[in-house]
């Protein structure tokens, strides 16, 4: 495959997002749903407008299709047409939709990336991964992720229909990926009653494989103190990623039997990588065989399952057993 990847874009993009694609090394060649004038404005004059999505798929110079909105049928069609797929907002894709995309990607030997992996790109996440992979925490027993407010650097999702679409997927993706996508045995959920104007607050409490108690707190708005932290507790050490402004940054505590754990490392600077880096990593994955930057279709399926289990737990007013 040539190093330059031709991009077909479906759905309403704005100039800024188009430019991000260009900066990531893609070459926009066909548009469906956005005007050619927009492409010119974004500095890609060769991108022509298509009359239909099928026309866009028929273009041989389009290697990758970017979808502005979640669209299971379009994604499946694009995979079947031999295109890779970049899905900007996973939105309300169901687990069933995701499972179908996993199958389609396998069948057609193509891949998809869902833009839920932005928090993975932050410097602290890769540092945490090094500690976890080196076994420096020993046996993990507790992982807790809390976001009160909004993760720094993540743009608000104006179309978000719930906390998962807003930033929940990103937080889940960050934590679950660090944990190697553990199996979940049980899931409890609580959502604050939500008359208009009430803050949204969702609590999830799961028993994951290997005896890990895994919890997530998502609050958008509300009168809690802003927080964005992830805690990993193990019998050999503990990790704290604290993204909040003025937070502690990155800390690692090493077990010291009978005494207070030694604080071995603190890094206080956190900067979320700009959005473009995921696009770029996806391009590098496709063109140069680098590792998939996430979120893969299989992982997206897992995220969709989390959302559906949470919805089931809320609706049935009981803990859900996940088999």
């Amino acid at each position, binding site marked *: 495959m040539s190093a330059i990847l031709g991009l077909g874009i479906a759905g309403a993009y704005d100039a800024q997002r188009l430019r991000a694609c260009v900066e990531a090394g893609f070459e926009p060649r066909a548009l469906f749903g956005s005007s050619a004038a927009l492409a010119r404005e974004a500095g890609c004059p060769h991108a022509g407008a298509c009359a239909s999505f099928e026309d866009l798929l028929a273009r041989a110079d389009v290697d990758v299709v970017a979808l502005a909105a979640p669209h299971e049928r379009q994604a499946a069609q694009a995979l079947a047409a031999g295109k890779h797929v970049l899905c900007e907002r996973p939105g309300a894709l169901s687990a069933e939709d995701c499972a179908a995309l996993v199958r389609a990607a396998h069948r057609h030997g193509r891949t998809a990336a869902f833009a839920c992996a932005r928090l993975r790109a932050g410097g602290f996440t890769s540092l945490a991964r090094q500690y976890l992979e080196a076994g420096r925490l020993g046996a993990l027993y507790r992982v*807790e992720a809390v976001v009160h407010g909004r993760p720094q650097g993540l743009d608000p999702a104006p179309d978000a229909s719930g906390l998962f679409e807003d930033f929940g997927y990103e937080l889940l993706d960050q934590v679950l990926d660090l944990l190697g996508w553990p199996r979940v045995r049980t899931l409890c959920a609580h959502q604050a009653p939500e008359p208009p104007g009430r*803050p949204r607050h969702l609590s999830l409490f799961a*028993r994951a494989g290997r005896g890990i108690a895994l919890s997530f707190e998502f609050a958008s708005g509300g*009168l809690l*103190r802003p927080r964005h932290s992830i805690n990993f507790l193990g019998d050999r050490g*503990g990790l704290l990623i604290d993204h909040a402004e003025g937070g502690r940054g990155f800390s690692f505590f090493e077990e010291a039997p*009978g005494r207070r*754990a030694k604080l071995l490392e603190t890094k206080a600077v956190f900067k979320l990588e700009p959005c473009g880096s995921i696009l770029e990593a996806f391009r590098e994955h496709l063109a140069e065989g680098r590792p998939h930057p996430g979120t893969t279709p299989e992982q997206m399926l897992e995220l969709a399952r989390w959302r559906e289990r949470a919805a089931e737990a809320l609706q049935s007013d009981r803990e859900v057993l996940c088999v």
Partner: protein
Amino acid sequence: MNLERPGIALIGCGQIAANCHLPGIQASPFALRAVCDAERERVERFKREQNLDASVAVCTSLDEILKLDGVQAVSIATPPASHAPLSIRALDAGKHVLCEKPSTLSASENRAVCAAVARNPGLTIQFFSSRFRDGAAPAARRFVREGRLGVPYKADIQFWLPAARTCDRGGPPWFGQKAHAGGGPFMDMGQYFLDRLFFILGWPRWRRLSAQTFSGFPTGNPPGVVYDVEDHMSLLAHFDGGLALTLETTARVNQHYRWSTTVAGSAGTLILDNAAPRRAVFRALKDGVPVEEDLEAPESAPDMQARLERLALRLKGERPELGTDHEQALYITEFCEAAYRSAAEGRELRAPEEAA
């Protein structure tokens, strides 16, 4: 009975007796009539080291105390396994009871205490899980009652002491033994914060909870000494009215300290300190911006003294608010018991009346 100077006996002459019970009694309207410990050597040393008056009797059992005249109340400062048997026996002998937390080891023990209260009308029992109800808690309760939080929807209790296990500091081994202590930091410290939270929120009904515990850190105990309580407890509980509680207690964790209780409501959030009961803030919008104000927390007498002052008023026929009563204690124990069972069984449990 001398209502100006009623008599009290102190049972258990260990650490909390010296640090809290004795000074509280000495500052209160009560006269110390007897000190008691199952181990004679300890009670004698206690009397000597604390320079107690020669008239204070030395006992090695509750039965000996019950033979004395002029004892209206007993103060129980023994390990938890003896709380229920001592309390029940004292109530049945006509004594008012003050008892350390955790109230008892199990809900069935608590029910036996409730039955003893019921068959002895006029007597009172108060447990010390109410210790954190002083300080800012009354102001916090007022804020809730006045609707300043709007609808409370999320509470959170965090108590993380990274290296505070008794077993690592040469303390009495019973703290680490389920049969004597009932549980680990969740029983020992969690009950304070559950008590205060329930007090502030007007004893909301819990409906279901799911919990997980971890224990696995080696201890500083000599070989052969049992250590079988949890090191870490995490739970999510659902209450009536759409309120949820997350809780996390540990005295052994590779992390920073944490000690706060938070109650988030639609119109404001309370944040209370779990180490300094007088420290608390209320966070709400002012001109569209979140602002934090300190809660009023009047200086109060140490809890032992305060509870005894109120008990003395009670003996005179007044009805001041006492510490954690038998029913509240039962409610807290049921919650704790359900949490431990949920953790052991790896599944959610519903409150007894929910399940029925």
